[in-house]
């Protein structure tokens, strides 16, 4: 199963988990599954039109899905991907 690594700011919405196993053959399906498991996340990650918010990036095996095929980027069963939101603390 693909696994999504959760950044600290989003962990409260997934019961504090550092990693969430998800199902799906594409990045978009995996994110859909994530937001079905944790509905509160949807508004933080997606705009109303279903696109990923501009301050959230999704990296599949170290590469930004915006540089690949976006939400259509295919996933292997053992893909680990990271959600990277903008943070500003200093």
């Amino acid at each position, binding site marked *: 199963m693909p696994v999504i690594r959760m950044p600290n700011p989003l962990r409260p919405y997934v019961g504090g988990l550092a990693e969430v196993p998800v199902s799906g053959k594409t990045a978009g399906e995996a994110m859909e599954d994530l937001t079905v498991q944790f509905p509160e996340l949807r508004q933080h990650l997606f705009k109303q039109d279903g696109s990923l918010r501009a301050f959230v990036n999704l990296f599949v095996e170290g590469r930004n899905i915006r540089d690949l095929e976006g939400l259509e980027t295919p996933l292997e069963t053992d893909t680990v991907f990271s959600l990277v939101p903008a943070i*500003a603390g200093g």
Partner: protein
Amino acid sequence: MVQELTRQELLRYSRHLLIPEIGLEGQRRLKTASALVIGTGGLGSPVLLYLAAAGVGHLGVVDHDVVEESNLQRQVIHGSAALGNKKVNSARARLEDLNPHIQVETYPEPFTAANAIEIAQPYDVIIDCSDNFPTRYLTNDLCVLTHKPNIYGAVFRFDGQASVFDARLGPCYRCLFPEPPPPGSVPTCNDAGVMGILPGTIGTIQATEALKILLGIGTSLTGKLLLYNALDMSFEQVILKKNPACKVCGDSPEIRALIDYDDFCGVSAINHADGPGDPAWDITVSQLAAQIKQDKNILLIDVREAHELSISHLDQAKNIPLGELAGRLDELDGSREIVLICRSGTRSRRGLEVLVGAGFTRVRNLQGGINAWAREIDPDLSVY
């Protein structure tokens, strides 16, 4: 112009001189080099300390804040004796003590589109140690437009990010984050907290990158984003690419001069809009104290996390953490006047937006939060 090192400096930097990649030539380069550090907080502290110790000859420090007690858990350049003093003065004193061979220039003013280009002009590298989105976008655009490397670091609770944004060689901050989050949607360290040692780790990485760039050695984080999680003790590098549609460094950039960054980040909107961000929705602590005295049947909702209540709380307040508020509206009696409370008034303002959005009309935000209550009404309560 290459500057010679004095006998005393040769002794001071001897452990650098022993390394072939630095040596005498590198140490001379550092002496003529300059770095501007935006912010002398959690990140700026280690950055400044290590760059000064390493012998970077000219350091600029921008910060308009004063040293507060709650800074000292992580802002290690400042000490208790500096409480209440301007941070730039406190930093300068520490740096001049650490290394009298360097020059420190201070800018005790907000870093804005009006002064950024002039302040940054003399410096080789710019190090973003700020704590807010408007300054981060300003620093990025400034560096793109004036062709300087932007050495980036940011922290949140246990998470850290570091990179080098140099639009001449790779992507910029806007390529990664074209737009900031809406104001209030990402809590600041003031509201969410930060593990004190975390900016120490990230700031030290920023200082390392700055020294490598000034020395012209090694491989920088250009085109890469370093992600650090202190709880898991994990480091991960992801690849960043230039965004051809980037508004400041893309193929047809729209931004050709610095803009209004408060406006871009929506900060001015939340401060002035006629919505829940309007101060008209606020109630001051003295107004609230008077209304409680008159027994106005006010419903106090404390939206902080449960673990914060042991630091300070009002007995009559009901605790509903902000994250749970939208799902627990049925516990609120809309016929009563509701006052939302948090630590400083920021999270309760977001709670206000939730309640107003759900149709509540008799809602107020306690200005300054429970800290203001502790300062002005009940000195037995702790400020944190």
